[in-house]
């Protein structure tokens, strides 16, 4: 398909030269939800050389109103988002090398993906991972484009190591109560605008048009009110632990303990074992069948218990749906899986 990028390179901001650069670049997208999916589709259509997309969750019916890569069948089959995204994106553009990875993005496993990455796009839904992305961006000198949305609001900022303040400068303490899609809902247009702003910034970066970058934090409410652009230069802190002179990348201190995490607003606890496990789903099915109805695909096995639902991933992670209580989730986990 000789002329598939013809209209894109006709645009003066990109041009033949810019398109050539785009075709050489590799982008890592963290999160394959609404923002990650929308960014991924636009970047793959734009002809980026390689797109890697990472996600820890599987497709659920409540995603379908805004997560454009997924179908009803994906939700019925509990397909991990990274796998479903890879399939869809491969069908969109065979020029692009596409890699979907179903895993819980953490400092160590994301760092191992950075070798040839030119840009990181934030499609995540929490600040814990954004602070990790921020430290990796500083350590490896890779720009990243933050995006976040909830309700009818969205925001985006492009972090350039060595030039702009970093996330740690902007938010000295990690927010524990961010406005999320679970607490405030979300409408698809808020996603699409946020993702479009991110992809636009990504195209400028990839095409080598750094002077055209926005350089301000943009905040909008698509339902009402005026957008706000904020000049961020005062945010830079000389003593920042992530981008300052004496830096120690506080978000990259690895933890190898078994980690229990309440997935905020979702009535779900995630359990990440200390060592990577590989379950044999057919024997696990035999064990769990005694407790409730089991369904499985090659990536996820679910078991419907009386008051809870378990989802076991190939990499050993377990989601306990139906509780926000860590102790309760732990009990169920130890009773059934260890």
């Amino acid at each position, binding site marked *: 398909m000789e002329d598939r990028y013809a209209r894109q390179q006709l645009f003066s901001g990109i041009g033949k030269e810019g398109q050539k650069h785009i075709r050489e670049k590799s982008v890592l997208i963290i999160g394959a*939800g*609404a923002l990650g999916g929308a960014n991924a589709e636009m970047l793959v259509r734009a002809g980026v050389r390689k797109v890697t997309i990472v996600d820890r969750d599987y497709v659920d019916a409540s995603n379908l109103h805004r997560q454009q890569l997924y179908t009803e069948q994906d939700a019925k089959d509990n397909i991990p988002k990274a796998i479903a995204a890879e399939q869809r994106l491969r069908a969109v553009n065979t020029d692009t090398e596409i890699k979907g990875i179903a895993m819980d993005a953490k400092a160590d496993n994301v760092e191992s993906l950075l070798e040839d990455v030119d840009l990181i796009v934030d499609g995540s839904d929490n600040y814990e991972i954004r602070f990790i992305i921020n430290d990796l961006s500083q350590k490896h000198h890779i720009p990243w484009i933050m995006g976040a949305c*909830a309700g009818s609001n*969205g925001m985006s900022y492009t972090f350039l190591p060595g030039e702009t303040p970093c996330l740690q400068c902007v938010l000295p303490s990690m*927010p524990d109560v961010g406005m999320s899609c679970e607490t*405030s809902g979300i409408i698809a247009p808020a996603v699409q605008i946020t993702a479009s702003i991110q992809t636009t910034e990504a195209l400028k970066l990839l095409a080598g048009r750094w002077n055209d970058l926005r350089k301000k934090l943009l905040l909008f409410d698509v339902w009402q009110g005026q957008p*706000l652009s*904020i000049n961020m230069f005062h945010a830079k802190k000389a003593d920042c632990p992530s981008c300052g002179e004496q830096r120690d990348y506080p978000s990259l201190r690895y933890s190898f303990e078994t980690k229990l995490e309440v997935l905020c607003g979702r009535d779900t606890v995630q359990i990440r074992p200390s060592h990577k496990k590989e379950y044999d789903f057919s024997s696990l099915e035999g064990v769990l069948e005694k407790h409730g109805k089991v369904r499985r695909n090659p990536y996820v096995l679910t078991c419907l218990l009386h008051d809870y639902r378990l989802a076991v991933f190939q990499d050993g992670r377990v989601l306990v749906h139906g509780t926000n209580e860590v102790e309760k989730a732990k009990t169920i986990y130890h009773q059934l899986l260890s």
Partner: protein
Amino acid sequence: MIKVLFFARLQEEIGKESMEVEKAGVSVSDLKKWLAATHHLPHMTQTMAAINENYANDDDIVNEGDTIAFIPPVSGG
């Protein structure tokens, strides 16, 4: 007089987009504390501030005629 703008969830919590207050000369952090106490806003310490569309640090002073915007973190995606 200074003008205070609220965004995202803060707007929902306080029930309006903006208000005017006689607080010229206070620091950003003191204004956050005052708003938190008088309007029952529990998360003001995690809120980003911008004075006249420039990012503001906690010890920056809000002057007469300034517009200060409070932006709570949006986390979803």
